């Protein structure tokens, strides 16, 4: 990676990503924490672009910054009486210790391992002419079983989420009210 642009982009995106992740940890408002999380996701998508992973970056923006963050905001708005102060639990200190330890281990491995020797001559830049085509070919070629399992998993997650939040008591109440009024559907509402 010789070009100066990619170095500047890496440092800017790395600072954005890590700083926004820290913001999730320290912000005193759950909604602000969600916005910090979205910022972190977008910075991570930029880091994917610097690694020439264009499809993954687009998927990251669509799925994480688009879908999952909206789900988080929905869940927060659907729990209006819960506290919004993003409070820490008693496990903050052990959690911070574990997090620091894991980060230190990964950092030590990153610094200590002679990647240039392991990877042959150098950690050379590698051209990805067509990541989308390659990913698609792998998905329906070698990894087709995992692909099918992932689709089944998504279907079951969809059905499970609908079944979990389905409010049977409210539906019974509505059906009973409709029946009392004499206008409701009698056979359908069981």
């Amino acid at each position: 990676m010789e070009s100066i642009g990619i170095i500047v982009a890496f440092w800017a995106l790395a600072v954005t990503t890590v700083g926004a992740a820290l913001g999730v940890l320290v912000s005193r408002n759950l909604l602000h924490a969600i916005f910090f999380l979205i910022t972190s996701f977008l910075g991570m998508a930029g880091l994917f672009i610097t690694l020439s992973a264009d499809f993954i970056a687009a998927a990251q923006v669509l799925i994480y910054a688009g879908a999952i963050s909206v789900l988080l905001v929905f869940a927060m708005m659907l729990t209006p009486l819960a506290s919004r102060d993003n409070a820490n639990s008693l496990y903050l200190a052990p959690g911070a210790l574990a997090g620091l330890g894991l980060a230190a281990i990964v950092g030590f491995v990153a610094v200590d391992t002679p990647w240039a020797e392991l990877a042959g001559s150098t950690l050379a830049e590698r051209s990805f002419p067509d990541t989308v085509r390659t990913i698609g070919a792998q998905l329906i070629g070698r990894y087709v079983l995992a692909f099918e399992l992932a689709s089944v998993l998504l279907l079951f997650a969809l059905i499970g989420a609908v079944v979990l939040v389905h409010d049977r008591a409210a539906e019974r109440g509505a059906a009973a009210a409709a029946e009392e009024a004499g206008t409701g559907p009698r056979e359908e509402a069981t």
Partner: protein
Amino acid sequence: MTLSVDLAHYMAVSGLVFGIGVTVALGKRNAIAVLMGIELMLNAVNLLLIAFARFGEAFAGAGEAIAGHTFVVFVLTVAAAEAAVVLAMAVLVYRRRETVELDRINLMRW
């Protein structure tokens, strides 16, 4: 130090984000915040997979051009499914207990 960006830099960023994710997941009281920590951890792992797919040509076999990218697609899938189910559970718990704070969900405490 030469002015370049290597695998080690991406590994350091990934480790930092993973550590922050662990801290958030263990140290927050709200179930939604805990889920945010888990998403941060998954993101860090994705970054590491992409970085190795980019730099680690010598680690991969000949036919495995960018298998790391394909793996990230599966991680994204599982993350989306997990987020949907966990948030549905949070809404369900809230409906019964009017809270999503994990240390107040103690129905099974003896």
